[in-house]
């Protein structure tokens, strides 16, 4: 179905961006506080309207809006068109829904900031770009959004750019993502080339679906792997996850929206969107699942010892994204999307909660300097606890159902090793979550007496409460085992997903096991951080090497720095000095300059500056031309 109204979803945030960017400064904080969130809310409302339209179109139904022809070059014609189907529609609701709540929260969090309007302009632009990414009907449009959200991410990480460290973090995120984006571009190019060979060049999802089965297997494998390289950058997977912990330098609502709920899940969405291609390349699927589970595990280990409240959550996000990739990697696309959704709820909320804590603690982020905040910030504590339970995977909270869905699908589809590692990561997840909660909210305060923790204003608490409700009920409403709403909803999109019927006994068993693991994580954390608070220190002393390894995050940043950054700088420095300087500048350029200088020095003697001498030359020319004519006449 075609509907030109669909573009309204994009236009509202765009209009919000334009207003805030160009008039926001003059309009003042009050107006910006209305325009920013309202533009996202209208977009959300439009999304809900089209969702209801979609319901009447059957499971393969979609709504399309071709806005204009974006690129027309020879045989290649790429429209700027957006498609609202069961998958992209779902993402639209998640992005605009969570996005709206975070916009509202930001009103309180960013209150009084000098760059208030700039912040909302970026945030609106981000939502616009994210919607382009999600709704784009072809890979290139997705890439446009992909780059656009990367840009906003960069701008917002470095929002307080006057501090060098924060500006650097933004730069790091941008550069690391660039590496992934190169893979993405190459992936698009591979598909464009492949489709041109077998029929006509296209990057339209709907047409690729018909083209992919006709492509040689290695082409599909290459394309999907290259696209996945892009996903590892944007979704912070091994080996390109290093930017996300640093990205916490941005304002906390940004971490919640971009670096937890939406942008970082773009890679998962991309794999789900390209499911037809990934299903045609089993090896690529295994790579996705393998990288996912490895990331889930290693990020969780790093989360165990992190001391910055936001870094704990950042590693947790990396780890949970790993789960999502396990989900899409074993063919449980709906499961991956399910976890994406619940994660958007509870991780966004965790960040908002962390933001509330930081706000109340006047900017303190080190959890070793917190403690006992339970009574000072009761509401924040409550929502944080719900989120923690959801993240840790305690039933009946949302994270339990979605994570378990993925682990069960992995087990049932025969990826038993992945399942085992995933369970181990789940244990650590529960442990670090409760470690965080206990350290922040329990025991005696460890902060300075100068700090007076206070509860946040309602404009921050209410969005948190809504998200808390969502992450409490979201799990069993959307994805109750065997009655999964989300799976049924997206059935038309994921024709290639794994089908697992029966085996409910096995599923029950695995669920029970996960619950035990989660509770065990809680119990260990309780023992170490509430009952006997000297225990962590002792353990760290005992396993000094392991602790150092984790605390320094496996020295990955340092290794990258030596291996890539320093090498690169060395090489480019060498090229600059020995090739550019010595050969090109000294050699070519100086020679050329000397030659032209010398030639000019000789030639300028011809220039007498005497007009009449030039007249003579002209007359001589006239004579020559006339003489030539006479000579031609004669012969």
């Amino acid at each position, binding site marked *: 179905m075609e509907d030109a109204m669909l573009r309204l979803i994009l236009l509202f945030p765009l209009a919000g961006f334009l207003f805030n960017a160009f008039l926001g400064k003059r309009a003042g904080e009050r107006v910006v506080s209305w325009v920013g969130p309202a533009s996202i809310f209208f977009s959300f409302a439009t999304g809900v309207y089209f969702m209801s339209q979609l319901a009447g179109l059957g499971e393969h139904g979609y709504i399309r809006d071709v806005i204009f022809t974006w690129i027309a070059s020879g045989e290649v014609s790429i429209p700027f068109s957006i498609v609202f189907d069961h998958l992209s529609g779902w993402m639209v609701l998640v992005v605009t829904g969570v996005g709206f709540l975070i916009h509202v929260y930001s009103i309180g969090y960013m209150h009084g900031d000098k760059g208030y309007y700039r912040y909302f302009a970026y945030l609106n632009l981000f939502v616009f770009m994210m919607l382009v990414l999600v709704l784009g009907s072809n890979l290139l449009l997705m890439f446009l959004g992909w780059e656009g959200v990367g840009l906003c991410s960069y701008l917002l990480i470095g929002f307080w750019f006057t501090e060098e460290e924060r500006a650097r973090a933004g730069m790091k995120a941008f550069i690391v993502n660039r590496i992934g984006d190169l893979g993405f571009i190459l992936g698009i190019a591979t598909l464009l080339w492949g489709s041109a060979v077998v029929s006509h060049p296209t990057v339209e999802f709907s047409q690729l679906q018909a083209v992919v089965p006709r492509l040689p297997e290695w082409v599909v494998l290459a394309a999907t792997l290259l696209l996945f390289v892009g996903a590892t950058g944007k979704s912070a997977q091994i080996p390109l996850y290093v930017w996300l912990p640093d990205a916490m330098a941005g304002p906390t609502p940004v971490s919640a929206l971009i670096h937890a709920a939406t942008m970082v899940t773009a890679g998962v969405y991309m794999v789900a969107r390209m499911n037809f291609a990934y299903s045609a390349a089993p090896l690529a699927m295994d790579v996705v699942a393998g990288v996912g589970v490895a990331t889930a595990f290693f990020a969780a280990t790093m989360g165990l010892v992190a001391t910055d409240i936001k870094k704990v959550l950042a590693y947790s996000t990396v780890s949970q994204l790993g789960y999502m990739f396990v989900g899409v990697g074993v063919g449980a696309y709906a499961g991956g999307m399910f976890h994406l959704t619940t994660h958007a709820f509870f991780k966004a909320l965790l960040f908002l909660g962390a933001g509330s804590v930081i706000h109340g603690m006047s900017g303190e982020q080190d959890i070793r300097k917190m403690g006992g905040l339970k009574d000072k910030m009761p509401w924040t504590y409550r929502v944080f606890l719900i989120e923690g339970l959801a993240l840790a995977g305690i039933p009946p909270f949302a994270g339990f159902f979605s994570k378990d869905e993925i682990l069960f699908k992995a087990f049932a589809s025969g990826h038993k090793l992945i399942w085992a590692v995933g369970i181990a990561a789940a244990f650590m997840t529960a442990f670090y979550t409760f470690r965080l909660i206990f350290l922040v909210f329990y025991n005696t305060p460890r902060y300075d007496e100068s700090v007076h923790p206070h509860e946040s204003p309602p404009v921050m608490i209410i969005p948190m409460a809504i998200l808390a409700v969502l992450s409490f009920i979201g799990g069993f409403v959307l994805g109750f085992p065997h009655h999964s709403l989300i799976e049924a909803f997206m059935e038309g999109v994921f024709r290639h997903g794994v089908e697992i019927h029966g085996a409910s006994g096995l599923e029950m068993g695995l669920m029970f096991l996960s619950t035990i693991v989660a509770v065990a994580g809680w119990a260990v954390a309780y023992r170490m951080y509430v009952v006997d608070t000297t225990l962590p220190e002792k353990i760290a002393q005992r396993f000094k090497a392991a602790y150092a390894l984790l605390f320094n995050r496996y020295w990955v940043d340092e290794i990258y720095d030596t291996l890539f950054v320093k090498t690169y700088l060395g090489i480019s420095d060498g090229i600059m000095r020995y090739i550019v300087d010595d050969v090109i500048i000294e050699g070519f350029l100086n020679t050329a300059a000397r030659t032209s200088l010398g030639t000019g020095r000789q030639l300028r003697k011809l220039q007498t500056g005497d007009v*009449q001498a030039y007249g*003579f030359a002209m*007359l*001589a020319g*006239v*004579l020559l031309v*006339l*003489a030539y*004519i*006479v000579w031609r*006449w004669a012969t």
Partner: protein
Amino acid sequence: MIVEWVIRALGIIAVLSALVAITRRNPIYSAVFLGLNFLCLGGIFTFYVSPFVGAVQIIVYAGAILVLFVLAIMILNLRDEDLGPSRRTVVKFFAVIAAIGVVWLIITITAGFVPPGREAGTISAAQVGRALLEAHVVAFEVISVLLITAVVGAVVLAKKRMEV
């Protein structure tokens, strides 16, 4: 027949006045003889083909351009001692040789050239106007741009003391 002889006479006067004009030491005399040259050419145009173009030739050249020259010369108001020696003889010699060469070559070229013999009587101003405003209207409009540019340029150049 009479007309042809008149034209020939005017042509001879034109050449002579031109020769005089370029050899006078005082530019005022040069201007006067140049004016005579313009008048002769205007006469030739008038008798040969078009009184209109002849009139324009006399009005613009003799009336406007030459007055401009005289005015400029008067403004500078050069005295006799400023009119230093002329160029070296060798320069003059080569210039004259080259000029004679040009004349000889042109005559050689055109001597073997037989033009179409559709001689018209006179060409009216209306015909000229039509040619300018129909077929060559772009050139006509460009000329207007050129003139306004020249006006502006002349004002700018002459008005202010240039800083070097």
